[in-house]
């Protein structure tokens, strides 16, 4: 039970991190007419954050099931 509470709090932390990275002025830092690896910076940034959030959630879930 304690383990489940820890997992849900970790997921809450992911949620807050996601809010910060996607819906705060931090986004505007990457919202610039620049290219990274030939791909618009903002596009690459959003997909990277997205992938990292998913990986973090998967990691938290899998560690809770051990």
């Amino acid at each position, binding site marked *: 039970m304690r383990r489940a509470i820890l*997992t*849900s709090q970790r*997921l*809450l932390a*992911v*949620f807050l991190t*996601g*809010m910060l990275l*996607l*819906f705060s002025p931090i*986004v*505007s830092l990457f*919202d*610039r*007419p620049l*290219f990274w*690896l*030939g*791909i*618009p910076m*903002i*596009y690459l940034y*959003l*997909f990277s954050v*997205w*992938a990292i*959030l*998913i*990986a973090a*959630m*998967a990691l938290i*879930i899998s560690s*809770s*099931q051990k």
Partner: protein
Amino acid sequence: MLGGPLIVVTSFLYLGLLFAIAYWADRRADQGRSVIAHPTVYALSLAVYCTAWTYYGSVGRAVQSGIGFLPIYLGPTLGAALWVFLLLKMIRVSKSQRITSIADFISSRHGKSHLLGGLVTVIAVVGVVPYIALQLKAVSNSFTILMHYPDITMPGSATALPIWQDTALYVALLLALFTILFGTRHLDASERHEGLVAAIAFESIVKLVALTAVGLFVTFGLYGGFADIMQQAQEAGLLQSMMNATSVSDQNWFTFSFLAAMAVILLPRQFQVAVVENSSERHISRAVWLFPLYLLLINIFVLPIALAGQLAFPDGRVDADTFVLTLPIAHGQEWLAMFSYLGGLSAATGMVIVETIALSTMVCNDLVMPVLLRHWRTRSVPADLTAVLLRVRRGAIFGILLLGYTYFHVAGEAYALVSIGLISFAAVAQFAPTMIGGLYWRGGTEAGALAGLGAGFTIWLYTLLLPSFAKSGWLPMTFLDSGPFGINLLAPQALFGLQGMNEISHTLFWSLTANIGAYLTVSLLRPPNAEETAQASLFVDAMKYDRPAIGLWRGNAEVTELKRLASRFLGRDKVDTAFAEFSRNRGTGYNPAQPADAETVHFAETLLTGAIGSASARVMVASVAQEEPLGLEEVMGILDEASRIRAYSKELEQKSRELEAATAELREANTRLQELDQLKDDFMSSVTHELRTPLTSIRAFSEMLLDDPRIKLDDRKRFLGIIVGETERLTRLVNQVLDLARIESGRGEWTTGEVDLAQLIRQSIETTGQLFRDKGTEVETRIPEGDFRVWADRDRLLQVMLNLLSNAVKFVPAGSGRIIITLSGGDEDYQVSVADNGPGISAGQQEQIFEKFQRGDGDNLANPMGTGLGLPISRQIIEHFGGHLWVESPPGKGAIFSFRMPKGSAKLPASETGSSDEPAYIDRG
């Protein structure tokens, strides 16, 4: 070569395949080997979220606003992180009360109100109809485009065609038929459709693979990868919208994310797959990351396709919403185009089927049932209501799809796909305050929920739905521009003069403000009544209760009556099985003659809730049970009691755990005591045995002297000598027993100080010198120069030394004995060894000789040479000063007794005063 017949046949084959999968999954479920009881299938079924809107519409949106298509998927990703709280609670509440729809959820939460369930149903139907229209539009458009392969022609305006030539109509009718076959073949008390879920999960795979195939073809077949396509788009000036540094910062970014995060659990079809069809709470945890991953994968190629489409059709003649299909057509990839069409078909059919089933359940339970119940109050009720329910649902499915078609026909042309979807999202967002708020706030009442939903829905209608009609020409455009009757303040898309927002954000702000405001205000006007309080407690405390709070019912009912009632809606067999299982779980058989208790009535009501909704179930059960309404005071009392009992039982558990721990400790202490007792007994019997031997010989010789006065003087002297020797031995034994007892009990008296080991050894040799000479033993010392001071009791340490030396003497052969005493220093301690050339000690005896009354000289009891306490005492002394005493005996080389003492320091208390006893006589054994 593609053509109408081939496309039609393929579509039917695809639908047939879906049906086969559903049939197979249903069969497996009946055999108890469910295919959908798997977390991955659950996550895939949630992907019914991705409809034709995602499939075709995202590309259109990307063309319009660059990365503007992403919030629809980023919102649910973040929302998923909270599912372990929110979705879990919704599932637990719904399972425990057999809630099968959103309408039932909201109505049940606010006191099982028919009115509320009806309102939610109306909102859901009206709100979702545009969304269904969107799917019809997508399917019929994609069909028409594919028909004209290899030409690319945009479908003309549907309104221009006579209605019987409109593909969308046939699509709607076909889907209605298909949905009926899927969803309403039989009536299930829990509204679960295993086959349906399996088919939906399969469709999720098809649409993902199809869109990815098109994406791969475009990105790597037509262009040289992501960077290449971006480069060419940049040169053509297509990335302007993404490069203007404000693409994210406009307000829609957050609004759309929020809307999507709400919609992913509040849309009727999402509620159906996420909550109603959920087979295990544990599946949520996989869905938390797998579902967002699915969303990520299906979006990777959206932007490349959008850019490639614009590069391929620069004149804007081709609708961006069709790029997924028209790009393969333009490049002559007929099979890819066909596959792409099937992907779109699967996205659309999945959505339509689940959505209409969910809506039909609501329409049946919350709109039609209340009317029927009223109708039956005056007329006789049909015996078998199962068929009636099924007919109602089938009718509802047809009705909803025809409504969708009508909307498509009326307003569908004015909007791009994404805008239509957002209209629906804004409608279902109206459920958030009552649904999510109601899960955590006890104060919400029926009136509050009605007011909130009513206000929010009205504003949605006025600011979003009516304008969509106006844009289609059904209402004058002046209505949009300058408000009704020229009142500018009431202009639908700039309500109260609020301008500068896009229409969705505008609607969302006003409708949610009104919704939450009315819900809170009206709820707070008066306290919740008994029924509302009871239901609020079931929802808010769902994670605390293990099972629904029964006991909130009082009255008279017959079990047979309840069963007859349930059978009408569910069929006799199902009800019999359910009741049998219920009484088995309770561990009691039921007696039909007995009146039903509260738990049974509750069970019957829950069973009915699954079939006809909570409000109707309440009414039906009340019709066969003479219910005595509970007052608010009583409900509060029962709830208080429940929470008090919970607290007590927690306390009890705690106490019993403590008791168990204490018992275990006591048991351990007892075992230890018994061991000690046993040791003491052994010791006592050894001591008495040792005492008896000298006493026996003293007595024997004394009696001889007493009985026979004629004994010669020499003999007398000899006898008396023996008696004196034995007495000495007795004294020694008693002294040593006392000594040992004192040391062991920690009451020994110690005089500690610095002791020079070298000097100690020399002194001990002097003391025992006579012994060595008597036996002709050679003594050799190996003492290096230096400082060998330790912290110890000098007399006690001497006692140890004397004991070791006298032992050694005892065992060396007479005349040729040789004893070597070695002193050496280590880093932290000094070591003293006494080596002899006696017979040695066998490996088995090396530890034994340190035990009490164990002698190194075997069982020579007739003439024992020692008391058997010398070595145990020596070991105790050395260990007292932090040292260690042990023996080594290499075979044939005699014995080496050694001890180590830590180097001298003043760590020990300097003056443990007290007189040392007269040094005991010490010997080995």
